[in-house]
């Protein structure tokens, strides 16, 4: 199983749909420990990406992902704008000129993106951010892909489960980065909005490939 360029486009398209569907949900999560805009930011940003997909389909996967990052960077705003912007720009840079991706490429994609988040936001593990999803997902990807002979379907399926658990694991954490950190202990008991959107992004890839 490989990921085609068409599937990357479908993935981005699906993320836009998923962010629209989960707009209120993400707003509610961000209301509890932030400023209630994460759902708005994400759906605005990925709508913009969606608008660009037709013209994007010419380029290679690297270009598609880099443009996605730049589009997010200039349309999302807030903390998640530069973070997801950097995530996708780094993905694009890691996959320059590719027309399809194998299992190792997908790992490279996640690793580059996650590294981007780390550099921009300087989160530590357990700070209750989106990074608390990507770090365990990458670890899971490495283990599972080895165990399953680089079988992308099996690997991704395991990663989605891992991501869901990681997302839920942000609930008991006390936020130390971003807006939620101002709440101190009051941030405990709420799921991190950015971790949730990261989970949704990963799940959208799995759903795209599974369809």
């Amino acid at each position, binding site marked *: 199983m490989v990921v085609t360029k068409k599937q990357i486009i479908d993935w981005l398209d699906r993320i836009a749909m998923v962010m629209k569907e989960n707009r209120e949900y993400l707003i509610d999560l961000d209301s509890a420990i932030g400023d209630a805009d994460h*759902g708005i930011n994400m759906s605005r940003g990925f709508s913009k990406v969606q608008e660009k997909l037709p013209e994007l389909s010419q380029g290679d996967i690297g270009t598609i992902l880099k443009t996605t990052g730049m589009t997010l*960077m200039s349309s999302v705003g807030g903390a998640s*704008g*530069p973070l997801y912007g950097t995530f996708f720009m780094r993905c694009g840079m890691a996959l320059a000129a590719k027309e399809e991706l194998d299992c190792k490429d997908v790992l490279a994609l996640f690793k580059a993106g996650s590294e981007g988040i780390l550099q921009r*936001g300087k989160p530590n593990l357990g700070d209750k951010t989106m990074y608390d999803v990507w770090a365990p997902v990458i670890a899971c990807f490495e283990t599972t892909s080895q165990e399953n002979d680089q079988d992308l379907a099996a690997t991704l399926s395991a990663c989605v489960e891992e991501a869901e658990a990681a997302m839920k694991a942000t609930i008991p954490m006390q936020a*130390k980065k971003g*807006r939620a950190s101002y*709440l*101190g202990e009051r941030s405990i008991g709420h799921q991190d909005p950015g971790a949730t959107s990261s989970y949704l992004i990963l799940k959208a890839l799995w759903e795209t490939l599974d369809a």
Partner: protein
Amino acid sequence: MKKLINDVDQVVVEQLQGMAAAHPELQVNIAPHYICRAKKGDKVAVISGGGSGHEPMHGGFVGFGMLDGACPGEVFTSPTPDQMYECAKAVGSDKGVLFLVKNYTGDVMNFETAAELVAAEGLPIQSILVDDDVAVKDSLYTAGRRGVGLTVLMEKIVGAAAEAGYSLQACADLARKINLNGRSMGMALTACTVPAAGKPNFELGDNEIEIGIGIHGEPGIQKAAMQTADEITETLFTQIIEDKGYSRTVREWDNNSSQWEEKKLVDEDFAPGDEMIAFVNSMGGTPLSELYTVYRKLDQLCAAKNIKIVRNLIGPYITSLEMQGFSITLLKADAEILKFWDAPVNTPGLRWGM
């Protein structure tokens, strides 16, 4: 949600169009959003920005003696780097560009990206953080103190210094000094509603208030039972006045090495005998009359501590949509600060001396 709007997705654009219609002396750019002076000056360009919903800040502070440009994001959402980049190109000269950035993760990351773009353009750039909100106690386990009321005073004072011909370095030094000598704290009687969200961000009972509120409709540091204006004022005043030696590490751009440098900065304490600029700010929905009730008590409290209020500003200048509540900012003022505070300013939101 009842608001004077047309379309939740168009609020920022339509407000900008209103600004453009009302203030032809400003240049309002729609794609990307920024407001700037019509003419590029032969001086340091001072640019600020942040989420919308804090009006008149920042767009209403563009004009002679204050900002050269302002970049409004969506409501309560940091602006994006392209806005600051385009704005800097519109007003920046070789005298350099100074970003005044409120310390929020989003603002910091977007302005940092923008600074890198501006630097790549060959313009001298400097970026100073405002983090004056004493409601946030440490910078180790949080994103650090937030930028709140002091931003308005900084924009006024640094804007005047830039107008007077201060260099980029001198403007940055003055801004940094202001940040280390000014502290704020706020509270809310009611929540506010982000138009696109459609409902208030938190709930407050009939007898509840939020102490230590930020300016983005997020809940405060602590819920409390409703109290008198005097009691609340004393709580905020005490927190501000007793806050000592806050320290943080900031990143400032080094134009020689073209990279970010970390600096550890420590607040200067307040002490009896200090002269202050006192700023009592409405969160948007609190009327002026109540601010004067607060100011009455603040004045008494300062007098009791032998702190001399030498200037004051009272009104809605850094707001949180229609939220009811207020914030207090105290800025220790030396001759340099007072000189530039008193200097003429002519913006839609702040005007005197001309």
